[in-house]
């Protein structure tokens, strides 16, 4: 618990030193706030409202909370405990993209799980224990540049493949934030979108993820022994699919083979892959043409095409944490606040900042979420209290991996990170 006291102090200091820099969210005083304190007995303090920024900052300085959230929703009385009496006025459209919720190959290196039931442990992303099948897993997930890069690319895809071309969303209204841990969120601050019901939000999210797509409705047909695919001269998902196929067909044969046989992605059989490669150029001509759509040369069974098209949809669609977008009473991390599991800042970004953004090694100082780097080189001494701790790579330098009982000397920001993660204690 000592380290919690320490971290709390550091968090308070941060808020004090940065009181001018904490941003003000749009329509600030209509938002509900929530806090998770360091004291582990208390889960979340919700239903708070702040009349002005000064009050919020003062609260942060006084309490140095572990996590800080505000609502996507707008309320007349944000502090009312009763949801019905809050006076709901609408909710920003929020999309959360977090690698916690989808597969990345590098998790095999840096995410550790341990089964509380049978004691088995391993690396990677598992839902339940592969040995005993129980769900009682303890997981230690780690930050990683590669994972964050995947998440960032999803955000970019979301903006430039969906929000702007399909929904005509004004880029000025898009706000992005690095979550301070393993993902990004995006919100759209627009009065028309704020009025959307949960059902309507789900429809938009289904569109963005490709959920509920019907290949028949889009035009896939079997007639006799022929398969007729999508025509290119269309609007919507059928066009997106054809473009993706075109993109794949333009890859080298080796790349295609690797992609299509990848168990986590296409997992297609050799037969299909062979045909696909043999007729690569013919198929490319068909896909590019406005009037040709006989896809039979690659395969004449509908099922095989489903097996091919479903992963295509997954590739086009965005990996979204769906409930966050649909639930209008959710709270999301407040920009400029600190993430209690890392000590990193929740960093607001403009869409233009995204391309070169690298939260773990950011060059633009005002966008750098790693706030506990000291000006003078200070080294802190810690003891590792977790059996296995993966390597931590921040600002181009790698620390670890560590084992239980290791005593280590690390720079200040790494110390804060390891303490926040709960894998070390001060000595």
């Amino acid at each position, binding site marked *: 618990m000592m380290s919690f006291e320490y971290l709390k102090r550091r968090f308070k200091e941060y808020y004090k030193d940065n009181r001018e820099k904490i941003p003000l969210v749009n329509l600030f005083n209509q938002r509900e706030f929530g806090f998770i304190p360091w004291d582990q007995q208390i889960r979340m303090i919700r239903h708070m409202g702040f009349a002005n920024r000064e009050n919020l900052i003062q609260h942060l300085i006084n309490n140095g909370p572990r996590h800080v959230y505000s609502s996507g929703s707008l309320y007349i009385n944000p502090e009312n405990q009763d949801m019905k009496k809050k006076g709901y006025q609408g909710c920003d459209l929020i999309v959360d993209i977090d690698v916690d919720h989808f597969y990345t190959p590098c998790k095999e290196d840096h995410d550790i799980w341990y089964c509380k039931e049978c004691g088995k442990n391993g690396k990677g992303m598992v839902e339940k224990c592969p040995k005993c099948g129980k769900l009682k897993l303890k997981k230690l997930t780690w930050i990683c540049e590669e994972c964050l890069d995947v998440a960032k690319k999803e955000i970019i895809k979301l903006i430039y493949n969906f929000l702007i071309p399909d929904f005509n969303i004004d880029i000025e209204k898009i706000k992005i934030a690095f979550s301070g841990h393993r993902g990004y969120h995006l919100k759209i601050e627009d009065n028309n979108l704020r009025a959307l019901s949960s059902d309507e939000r789900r429809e938009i999210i289904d569109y963005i993820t490709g959920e509920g797509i019907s290949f028949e409705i889009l035009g896939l047909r079997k007639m006799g022994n022929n398969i*007729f695919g999508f025509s290119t001269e269309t609007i919507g998902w059928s066009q997106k699919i054809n473009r993706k196929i075109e993109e794949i067909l333009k890859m080298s044969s080796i790349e295609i083979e690797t992609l299509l046989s990848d168990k986590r992605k296409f997992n297609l059989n050799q037969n299909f892959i062979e045909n696909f490669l043999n007729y690569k150029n013919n198929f490319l001509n068909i896909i590019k043409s406005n009037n040709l759509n006989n896809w039979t040369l690659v395969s004449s069974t509908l099922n095989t095409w489903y097996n091919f098209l479903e992963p295509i949809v997954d590739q086009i669609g965005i990996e979204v944490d769906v409930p966050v977008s649909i639930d209008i009473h959710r709270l999301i991390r407040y920009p400029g606040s600190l993430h209690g599991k890392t000590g990193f800042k929740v960093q607001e970004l403009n869409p233009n900042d995204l391309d070169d953004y690298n939260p773990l090694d950011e060059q633009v100082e005002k966008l750098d979420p790693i706030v506990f780097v000291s000006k003078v080189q200070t080294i802190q001494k810690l003891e590792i209290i977790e059996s296995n701790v993966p390597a931590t790579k921040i600002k181009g330098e790698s620390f670890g991996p560590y084992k239980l009982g290791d005593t280590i000397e690390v720079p200040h920001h790494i110390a804060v990170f390891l303490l926040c993660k709960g894998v070390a204690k001060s000595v």
Partner: protein
Amino acid sequence: MSDIYDLVKRYPWLPSLKTSYSDIASKNPLDFINEIFTSDKSNDIKRRVLTIFNDAFSNIEQLSEYELDENNIYVYLILKIILYIINNKILSNRIANIYSKTTYNELNKENEYNLYYIYQDLNLEVLYDEQPTIYKKFVVKDQQEIFKTNFKISYLNYLKLASNLKDEYRKLVNNAVRQGYVYIKPENINRLLQEHVRMKFLTQNNEISTELDKFKEKLFEIQEFKALYDTITAIWESKKEEFEYTIDITFKEGKDISETFPPCIKEILSKAQEGQNLIHTERLFILWFLNSLKYPEDKIINVFSTLPDFNREQTAYQVKYAMKKGYTPYSCKSLKSYSLCFAKEYKDVLCLEGYFSRLQEVQKDISHPLKYIEVKQYRDSKKLKKTKNQTLDKK
């Protein structure tokens, strides 16, 4: 091109009713009814209202009469008032379905100018492009089916109208979305308006019953209105059973096995009964389910007859097809993944806790709705035997 007065006569649910017929729209319902039932229009309007109810009761799918004169406005308003005070879900749904379907057919007869006006009146952001846009194309051999349209509707409006239709064709992901608009043919917008009109009749009556009673009392002082109301409720009373039980199909020597249905089935059936929309998966499931219980074709078709978009021919075709193919209905696992399992909501003990298999001597989960029926029927037959034995004992 029709002017807005004419359009409101045809479509009294248009917002312009309030401005173009402000003398009607601004009245309070009591004065309004009073005036109507003492005017010379009275007889014609009464007759038409009654016809609509009769149409609804006789299970036909379209209004037998729909005139586009001023009285049509009165008929619409009176229908709504009557449904409001009868306050019966099944009845409201019946009228809502049949009325909105007629609306749909009428809308489809309008030319593009009138449609454009109607959409504007509803404050929909619908744009008309001079050049039609191709948004979908099916090419099969030398034949091309090209979908093109001059209309596009803002996706926000589209969602407002379509998001509770819950059917695959209406899902945004299966539609042509570009630059904030959905490219759509007018008949498809009209289908969405059908739903909009349907909902007009279904505004829940949430007022505390004493107030409703007071309102009724006042209305009933108007003799002519009371008479009409009584006639309608009398027919309803006599037909009610037929309606409430159309789904509890009793066949097989009059034995009703719907009591043994699991929650997932009961939920869909009660939705259908109320005339709510069913999503595609629900339709398939119920179809395959009843089919595997060997329900007769016409009984199955009748289950669907209350749905807002019911089309007898099409349904018959689908039912026949399913019967021929003999598909197995979804398992509990699939139903759960589709969020169609209602075990928790119904607090159904058999679904939640499973049953004890004597053969294998283990507690087993219900894994399939058909298994549920099997277990239920087995238990019922046991009960039957027991009571039989008990009575024998007494003898």
